């Protein structure tokens, strides 16, 4: 047996706990989850241009007197969103994939796209209303986050044929956005495991509005 030390050794805090502690947002109940998932996206999944967005749910307005200072449950706190640019495409609609295959377009040929993430924690109550509120807030968020179009002229070894195909692709994509045939609004739902014995694993699910047929691979 190891002899008892006179003073118990203080355990070193984990880097993540330090991050959450140091963050200015730590005063709010959901902030720790958001930061933890942001951290996971940044360091495990190598996302870039990460941002945090606050949206207000319309249900708040109708809610019964949300008195200042009362303990607000997770249920009526407006969800916070994260957005960022993943190193690889997370989701491609099956029909879009088919189109890309026909045109010989690789994912790497395409401009990276900003994806929005709903940070949640295990055990957190949700509702369809809350989910819908997130989706309803997406268009204005997305338009505020339009990436500057990276000029293809920048690379001087432009394969004109490829450029033409890409133009076709973007035109088709624009069209598909109107007809909604390649799916409509989509977000990534992130859930961090915080339950009993939760070890901080984060799982990610694609959520799309409406009936979007499943991928087959």
């Amino acid at each position, binding site marked *: 047996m190891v002899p008892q030390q006179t003073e118990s050794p203080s355990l070193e805090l984990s880097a993540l706990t330090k991050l959450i502690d140091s963050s200015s947002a730590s005063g709010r109940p959901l902030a720790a989850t958001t930061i933890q998932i942001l951290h996971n996206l940044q360091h495990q999944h190598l996302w870039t241009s990460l941002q945090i967005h606050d949206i207000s749910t319309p249900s708040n307005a109708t809610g019964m007197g949300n008195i200042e200072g009362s303990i607000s449950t997770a249920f009526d706190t407006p969800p916070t969103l994260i957005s960022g640019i993943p190193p690889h495409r*997370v989701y491609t609609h099956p029909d879009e994939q088919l189109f890309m295959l026909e045109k010989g377009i690789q994912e790497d040929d395409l401009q990276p796209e900003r994806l929005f993430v709903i940070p949640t924690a295990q055990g957190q109550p*949700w509702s369809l209303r809350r989910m819908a509120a997130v989706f309803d807030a997406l268009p204005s968020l997305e338009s505020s986050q339009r990436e500057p179009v990276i000029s293809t002229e920048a690379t001087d070894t432009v394969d004109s044929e490829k450029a033409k195909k890409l133009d076709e692709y973007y035109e088709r994509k624009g069209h598909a956005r109107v007809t909604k045939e390649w799916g409509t609004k989509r977000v990534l739902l992130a859930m961090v495991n915080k339950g009993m014995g939760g070890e901080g694993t984060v799982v990610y699910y694609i959520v799309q509005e409406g009936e979007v047929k499943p991928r087959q691979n």
Partner: protein
Amino acid sequence: MDSTPTLPIPISYISGRYLLFSIDAVTYLRREHHICGVLIGTLPQIPQQNVFLGLPLELMPEEARLLVDKGVACIVDEAKAHDGMRSLLEEDRRQYLRELESQGQHAMRILADRKEQQREQTLRKLDEKKAKAQAAEVAKSAAGAEAAASSVPSPAEKDGPNSTLDIFGGDDKPSSPSPATLTNTPTPQQVMGITPATSYPPLPHPASLACELLSKPDVPLSYPVFAHLHSHGYFLSPGLRFGCQYVAYPGDPLRFHSHFLVVSAEWDQEIDIMDIVNGGRLGTGVKKGFLLGGPQKRRDEVDAEADRIDTVRTFSIEWAGM
């Protein structure tokens, strides 16, 4: 098969369940209204298996409700309707029995012809087998050959023809029933007994008797999602065996794999985020999407359940693969 049965189609309400017994109604509803139901009966031609089942067809209350709302079907209290058997006119009763007898004779003739063909075929096979057996005998012991010969199935037992006798197809009913020969000494080999699928005839079409019609079926809270998906062209089946409420197919389940495992929730119903993860995982495991949806209005906010259908919003969930 492409015929349209008399509308509205009577759905039998029996002991709290919604059933269909008419093949024409089943085919029509599947083809024209994307309503499949679940076959729960035994097929008389192959009764010893559970892979292919036959009539009756059980409808979910949701399916029955949808059809009633569309004006395509009505709900008949079948137990009450069959009280009508007590008040059959003697003339109708005899007429019905004559029709059955004539169909039974018709069936007998067809089967006799088939049996003759079968017999010839079997004899031929028997001869071949015998020849083979003899050949085997030369090579091996005689004991094996005897066993082979006795294992030839007897053709007499099963009397089902290979393709369907379309006796109850509806269109080609014998218009002039042959004169009844109701002799008291039953001469076997004469008439096939028939168990008809439905009781109409001899009973009159139930839609004509308003007194036996029941009100619209009660439906669970998930009905708006059911109706919403149905209106978008999906075929829906009960889904508990796949871990959900409905399975949604993009076309007739006879030909297509399902796309979604569907779960419905009320707009403000609390959903554990873990259930969304579970659903997404369940679906991705079988290459299906997990579809979560519900109407934005509660029942107490609308006049009729139908008003909730247009307010349905759904979300498709798949594992992100990261």
